[in-house]
């Protein structure tokens, strides 16, 4: 791909998220040791790997919840590793869903979805409310609008969290093991929601252990171990031809 000018406007032929040689340390502990990959618009990327390999750290770096020491992360042309980064601009583009949902417990499901567009984007309350009802419906929680997070199951809370992110109209969604804390029965309902999002063309970066889901939906799978990408490829070849012993061991444990 031809090098685009550093600060030129982002165009769809360039990666939506471009990660180049990212290094990240916590004190003396180097957690990411040179990670590079690109995500094009509409792609679904799955990151897998053993616990502690730096998956969460990587995904948190993409929306600047963690800073990086070296390398570059660009989201639609915005350099995340820029000291003058406008975090609000970045966060308007990137939605994030956490393993523990992290809903605002003092607000109802509907209010959780409405808050950020009203407070952060200063959008009209009536418009936001309409959109919030639609989003709640989209994640199949009609009738739960006035429930508080504490009154919802894990799977329901996670879907509210997805709707809350979508209310900001992001261009990229980050999912960090969003089904890991759920009961097996409710995993499916959350995966269906994500699948529908992906089918609508949302660019998604997921950290997940749901191999069936990754096989079916991902355009590309990255296997990370101890801060590096060990192996990657489209699902078909990735699962059939994994060569590295670390990948094979991981897959044999999880499949």
């Amino acid at each position, binding site marked *: 791909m031809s090098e685009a000018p550093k600060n030129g406007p982002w165009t769809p032929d360039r990666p939506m998220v471009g990660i180049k040689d990212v290094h990240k340390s916590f004190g003396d502990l180097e957690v990411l040791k040179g990670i590079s990959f690109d995500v094009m618009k509409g792609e679904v990327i799955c990151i897998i790997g053993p616990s502690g390999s730096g998956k969460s750290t990587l995904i948190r770096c993409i929306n600047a919840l963690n800073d990086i020491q070296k390398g570059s992360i660009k989201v639609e042309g915005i350099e995340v590793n820029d000291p003058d980064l406008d975090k609000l601009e970045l966060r308007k583009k990137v939605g994030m869903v956490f393993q523990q949902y992290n809903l605002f417990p*003092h607000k109802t499901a509907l209010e959780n979805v409405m808050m950020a567009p009203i407070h952060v984007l200063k959008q009209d309350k009536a418009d936001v409310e309409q959109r919030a009802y639609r989003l709640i419906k989209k994640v199949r929680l009609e009738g739960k609008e006035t429930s508080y997070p504490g009154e919802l199951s894990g799977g329901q809370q996670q879907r509210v969290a997805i709707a809350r992110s979508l209310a900001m109209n992001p261009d990229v969604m980050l999912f960090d093991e969003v089904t890991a804390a759920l009961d097996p029965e409710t995993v499916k309902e959350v995966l269906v929601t994500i699948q529908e999002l992906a089918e609508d063309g949302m660019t998604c970066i997921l950290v997940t252990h749901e191999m069936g889901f990754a096989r079916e939906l991902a355009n590309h799978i990255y296997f990370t171990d101890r801060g590096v990408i060990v192996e990657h490829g489209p699902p078909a070849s990735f699962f059939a031809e994994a060569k590295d012993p670390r990948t094979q061991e991981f897959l044999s444990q999880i499949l």
Partner: protein
Amino acid sequence: MLDLLTPFFRRLYDETGWNFVIFYEQYEWDRFVAAIWVSLELIVASLFFSLVVGIVGAWLQGSPIRAVRLFMSGYIQFFRNTPPYVQLLFFFFVLGNFTPKVDMGGYYEPMITSFGWAVISLSFFAGAFNVEIFRAGIEAVPESTREAAESLGYSRLMAYVYVILPLAFRVCLPSLNNNLVNLLKTTTQAYAIAVPEMLYTLNQVWSDNVNVPEMMIVLFVYYVGLVAVLVWGMHRWERKMKIPGYG
């Protein structure tokens, strides 16, 4: 009102010698009613500003700037570790000396009255405790909740106002309750700088009428009643803030 009380209290005085003069003599009654207003104003203003100090102070204490955090801990140490009575005298007699006087057309009045100094002093005193109380509440809010707000584009201040503080409030209401009750009672110290609140006024009454025990009873009953109202209000607030399915 006084008309209703007069017959009973005058008879009480005539027959037993118990002199609740404020309930049967117009002049004393007027003083008493004025004291009610002054003490209520003093209490409401001090409660309000101590909460403001607490909320703003807890925010400043979480500042990324070290100098701000140091200043806040200096403030807290000073007000927590010195007697509120001495603080009040300091504010009034020392700082009061340095504040400009305003021309009232011929005569000069200090810009800040003794009532004003009492509110300032009491608010900073109780505010120092409120800062620590809110701080504890804020620390009880999980970091992940703050991160969720941050990743939705909330700035530090907006996350504080809309997410952290409302959650912290719920955690710290019981200790806040205690501190505010303390503050309410401490307002009687404004007596020392001649704020005509209840203690000051009744002290004048018993000097004029030599009825110390009777006026003491009035004082106790008055403050028991006020504290009961405050506690009742705080509990109502606590119940109202309770989140279904949480905590």
